[in-house]
């Protein structure tokens, strides 16, 4: 019996595409979800979108939309909108003709087509582009045209293939705002990307796909705080990985790395050995020794300072190599220089344990 709340269900979907294979994909997406599927290029995320849209048929498994089995339903009848990574705007048509494409097959009166195109263009702030050739539009404009063209038919589900990949960084925030607004208006969105920051800022649910399999999914906080393996952890921006042995002494958990650095851990269940993960932004850096009650403090030497999108990334050698993210403001107030001595600290709860080393 299928639950009504799950609008889209993928059951054991498998598909072989040349040497590559999507394997046993299971997904349940409820109405109004903003689902971000994270994966490297070649991980199978675009192929999965094309299967959902109906551009390809799965070798096995079932696809359900609104309690209807659409596995073998024609692409034209699925009512699922897909925006391609490079937008696939028809270069032989004007912006107007592109947006009107899905409703101008002759069955709808021309004045109604004009009215609907005009409304869609106004919603996406592209009314001034309607008469234009599409060859000289910017990435942001092309994306708005592609969204207007797809959404003019009011699809049940919107699929976005790497929507931020081909636009300038300055326009990304605009597009994120636009996508958030569409989602808030009730549109269910599946967005595939290789950039976990897009998931952090947009997703209500996240899945991580690797080698054609979804290896973890859940709410973003859970996936990013409790990655199931090193791949997911790396994907969610973790840069500090330590091979450790875990032990409990006097009721307190700790971990000892290969380089004999001891980490104090919060009370939980740990394997005998594995990986300890630390997010770069959970580590604080200071010139003075911080208060180390119920935490971890280490003295180290600054090895490298590199600019990053948050501010700077500081590499500190404190027995193990730690990568620390510091905001531009904090770095300005408390600058450090290479080869100087610093203290790094992080709370017990910051450590994430993983069984195994992969």
């Amino acid at each position, binding site marked *: 019996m299928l639950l009504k709340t799950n609008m889209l269900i993928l059951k054991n979907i498998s598909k072989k595409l040349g040497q590559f294979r999507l394997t046993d994909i299971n997904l349940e997406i409820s109405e109004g979800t903003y689902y971000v599927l994270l994966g490297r290029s070649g991980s199978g995320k675009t192929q999965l979108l*094309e299967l959902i*849209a*109906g*551009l390809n048929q799965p070798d096995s498994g079932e696809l359900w939309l609104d309690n209807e089995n659409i596995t073998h339903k024609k*692409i*034209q009848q699925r009512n*699922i*909108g*897909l925006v*391609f990574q*490079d937008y*696939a705007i*028809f*270069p*032989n048509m004007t912006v107007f003709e592109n947006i009107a*494409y*899905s409703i101008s*097959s002759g069955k709808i009166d021309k004045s109604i087509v004009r009215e609907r195109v005009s409304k869609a263009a106004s919603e996406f702030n592209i009314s001034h582009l309607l008469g234009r050739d*599409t*060859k*000289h*539009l910017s990435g942001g404009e092309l994306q708005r045209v592609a969204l207007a*063209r*797809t959404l003019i*038919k009011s699809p049940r589900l919107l699929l976005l293939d790497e929507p931020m990949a081909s636009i300038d960084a300055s326009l990304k925030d605009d597009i994120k705002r636009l996508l958030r607004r569409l989602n808030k208006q009730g549109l269910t969105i599946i967005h595939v990307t290789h950039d976990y920051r897009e998931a952090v800022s947009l997703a209500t649910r996240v899945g991580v796909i690797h080698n054609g399999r979804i290896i973890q999914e859940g709410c973003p906080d859970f996936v990013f705080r409790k990655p199931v393996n090193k791949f997911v952890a790396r994907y969610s921006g973790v840069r500090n990985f330590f091979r450790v042995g875990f032990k409990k002494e006097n009721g307190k958990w700790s971990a000892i790395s290969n380089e004999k650095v001891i980490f104090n851990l919060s009370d939980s269940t740990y394997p005998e050995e594995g990986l300890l993960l630390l997010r770069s932004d959970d580590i604080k850096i200071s010139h003075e020794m911080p208060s180390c009650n119920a935490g971890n403090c280490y003295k180290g030497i600054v090895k490298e300072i590199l600019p990053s999108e948050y501010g700077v990334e500081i590499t500190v050698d404190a027995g193990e190599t730690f990568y620390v993210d510091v905001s531009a403001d904090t770095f300005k107030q408390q600058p450090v220089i290479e080869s100087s001595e610093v203290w790094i600290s992080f709370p017990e709860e910051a450590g994430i344990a993983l069984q195994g080393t992969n």
Partner: protein
Amino acid sequence: MNRNGPFNWILLILSSLVLLFLVAPLLGMFLKTGIGEFFETAKDKDVQSSIWLTVWVAFSATLFFAVAAVPFAWLLARKSFPLKSVVQGIIDLPVVLPHTAAGIALLGFISRDGLLGKAANSVGFNLVNNPAGIAIAMAFVSLPFLINSARDGFTTVPERLEKAALNLGAGRSRVFFTISLPLAWRSIITGFVMMFARGMSEFGAVVIIAYHPMIAPVLIYDRFSSFGLKYARPAAVLFIIVALVVFTILRLLSDTGKTVVTKDEYADS
């Protein structure tokens, strides 16, 4: 002279020799043809009707076969199927066949005993020594030019544009006519012109199917074999001029057609 100098000189000399080889016979023919005999030939009703027959039959053959050849080219560009390379080899076969051999093969097909000839004959139509037979011979030897050029054109159309159109609810035929065909238009026109040109200049296959009515290449050969070089030359010059004018017009028409965006141009945009 820079250090590539000798190489550049060799290139220049070799290229000039190739060009001279192509131009010299034609130029010689034009120079040896007197103005008087040229205009006299141009007024000759037999010459006029043979050139007209050549142009319209070649054009009709190209147009008629394009209706099937262009969708076939799309199929070759987009789909994988068993023995596709064999099919591709069959398409190229007329290019490597001696054209007289092609004519003999076709004659067996369209003569009264042949499959197509028998069918045509049953409705009182004889394909041998008939413009329809000539069109078949022209199309047989020239179809690869259209199919290959159109296939290359369809290959340059990004497949995701067709997928996007399908996702927007368009049927396969609408996608073909609104996306694939307009975007591959230039290559299709190039193939069309090439097929038309090849059809017009065909002699070997046509002469076996139909000596009469005479197309221009057969008429030139007939005059050469019956009366000699001097008598055949003005007809050849006239036919070349007509062919050049027709192709120039077709080129101009295709260039003023819809702007076609290739995959690379699209990616740049």
